[in-house]
């Protein structure tokens, strides 16, 4: 464990609607962010935002949105649309946001629930329609934000299409990605990461976790914060789990 002498640094994570968007072990992502901050002596305050609350993002460093069933996702979207302006300012100000699976779809202009088109948050220029069959299985993605390939699991009926100016999170090495045909997976816009790699994205991909933490530290504590605060961790177990799955799949 690393303790930065005299450091009073701390970050606040807003976990949106954990009781609704928790389909695939999503809380694992928040746990990993929290532990990786604490192991570095950086305090971490996780604020759960529940249905009916009016979240404020002004003092938040990382926002996490998980995935839910259609029904639950719909409830969440209705609540979040009210907060859209606040979220837009947060994102345009360089706020860090990780959205997984259904949460990823919410970032865009619209997605389909059954045959009904549901309005999204329009935080990122993308939209989601549907295809058959569902795209299910292990996935490996090469991304510039992670030294190791990102490895995980995807399970989605939606096909997500990125606007011309939106960078994908990475290229699909194994699996389907955004739509099963473009060869791209996820989106990267300012400090927003959206991805279909669901559930425990961060545990086996510590590079992604630390990229998010680094961006949040820079935003709060300035450009030299990463060098000062982001001490290296012993990631032997995480990297071994990553390597084993990558070798099996590629």
């Amino acid at each position, binding site marked *: 464990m690393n303790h930065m002498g005299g450091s009073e640094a701390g970050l606040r994570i807003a976990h949106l609607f954990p009781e609704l968007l*928790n389909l695939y*072990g999503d809380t*694992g992502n928040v746990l*990993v962010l929290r532990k990786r901050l604490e192991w570095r002596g950086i305090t971490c305050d996780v604020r759960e935002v529940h249905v009916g609350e009016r979240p404020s993002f002004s003092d938040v460093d990382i926002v996490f949105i998980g995935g839910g069933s259609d029904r639950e996702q719909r409830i969440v979207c209705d609540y979040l649309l009210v907060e859209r302006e606040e979220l837009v300012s947060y994102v345009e100000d360089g706020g860090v946001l990780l959205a997984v699976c259904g949460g990823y779809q919410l970032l865009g202009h619209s997605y389909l629930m059954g045959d009904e088109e549901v309005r999204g948050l329009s935080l990122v220029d993308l939209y989601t329609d549907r295809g058959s069959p569902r795209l299910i299985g292990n996935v490996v993605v090469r991304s510039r934000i992670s030294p190791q390939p990102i490895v995980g699991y995807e399970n989605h009926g939606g096909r997500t299409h990125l606007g011309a100016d939106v960078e994908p999170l990475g290229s699909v090495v194994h699996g389907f990605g955004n739509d099963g045909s473009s060869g791209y997976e996820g989106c990267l816009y300012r400090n927003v990461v959206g991805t279909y790699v*669901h559930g*425990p994205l961060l545990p086996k991909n510590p590079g992604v976790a630390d990229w998010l933490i680094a961006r949040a530290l820079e935003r709060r504590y300035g450009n030299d914060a990463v060098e000062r605060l982001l001490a290296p961790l012993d990631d032997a177990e995480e990297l*071994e789990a990553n390597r084993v799955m990558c070798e099996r799949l590629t």
Partner: protein
Amino acid sequence: MSVRILISTKVGRATHWVLHDVLHRSASQLPGRVALSIDPQLLSHVREKVSRGFVVVCGTNGKTTTTNLIAAMLEEHGDVVLCNRDGANMAAGVASALLPLRDADWAVLEADELSTIHILPQLRPTYLVLLNLFRDQLDRAGEIDHVQDVIASALEQSPETTLLVCGDDPLSMGVAARAHARGTRVLAFGVDEDLGLPTDRVPEARFCQQCGAELDYAYRTYAQLGAFRCPSCGFGRPTLDYAARNVKVGREGVSFSLVEKGGRTEWRIHADFGGVYMVYNVLATAAVCERAGVGGSCLQRALDAYDPHNGRLQSFVVDGREVVLNLAKNPTGLNQNVSLLLADGRPKAVCVVINDNYNDGRDVSWLWDVDFERMATDDQVVRVMAGGLRAHDLQVRLKYAGIPARCVEGVADALSAVGDLPVEQPLYVLTNYSALEPARHELERAGEPHGRK
């Protein structure tokens, strides 16, 4: 009897003979599949061979145990019972169990939740027992809403079936509500008092499926089970037709009094195994027992003799050390196993084995929904190991729970890794589906059965 059913059952039984007697292979699936391919209506054609009734058991956790208990209880009564005891629970497995086509009093059949739609319309059972619904194998089974729809549709196509449902489970009651609205007769069982147990994390069903409001609980027994009620629309636990009262759960097993709503019955029942989840399995069995007009003494004898040799809570002794093997294939199952081993006051080692073969579900994300953190704070858990095809994923999960774990190859490796611990310290081996049989065979080879205390 038609020519087709004669041919299909003869070919099915011949397949069974070749597999079982000649090749010494498992005959729990293929004979039924062959027979069903010749006669797709096989299930409805065998109905007449069973004189008293059919009981189909489904639910995410506890199917195999409950099916075996119901069959054993009826056999104690002297009835002839057909049963898919080994848990082959798709339509082919159910057909295989019925193939002997001898006259029987009862058929007691475990059914996979999604297979109910293939089984119920043809079999039209007397009872469908619905134990619980938990998140399980999302990649294969889909979301819980879908599973509920399938069971409700299956019941709609089998109007003479009475649904015997866990009234404490909002998700199972969601099925009951839909089925009841379409004319199904519903009887509910549940635990009618606060057990005061520490409850585990509740990953699902915090919200009313009817209206979306957060459910209130007078008390919870485990996971989302308990005395629930929606403050907004009133959806809640029904009046219990079969209630467990004066419940005791401890190291020596479970016991409770079964109280039937009409006051017909009040039995004291005891099982020297399992935790709070076992109260529900035994309670469901007791409800069937009472409906079937079988005395409580038959159930008690079945429980006393229960020793299924199927890896569910099976104990062995290997080189003087007790090894407890149990199935744990989803968050709720693993959480219940953690409760069980924490209730064992002895210092102990734990080996969790997770595979990701097809029948396990390929997606192991659910490991992050398991409350492993409870093991981290208990100093009687002296060593933890991770095994199986996804040992490394498990090791990372445990690391973030604050538990340093080492990876092991298999159960034999785990046993040698605890060689330095005193033999009085037991080893708990918890595996998911496809890892269970290999673990059981390894333990049977390495040690001997351990009589239950």
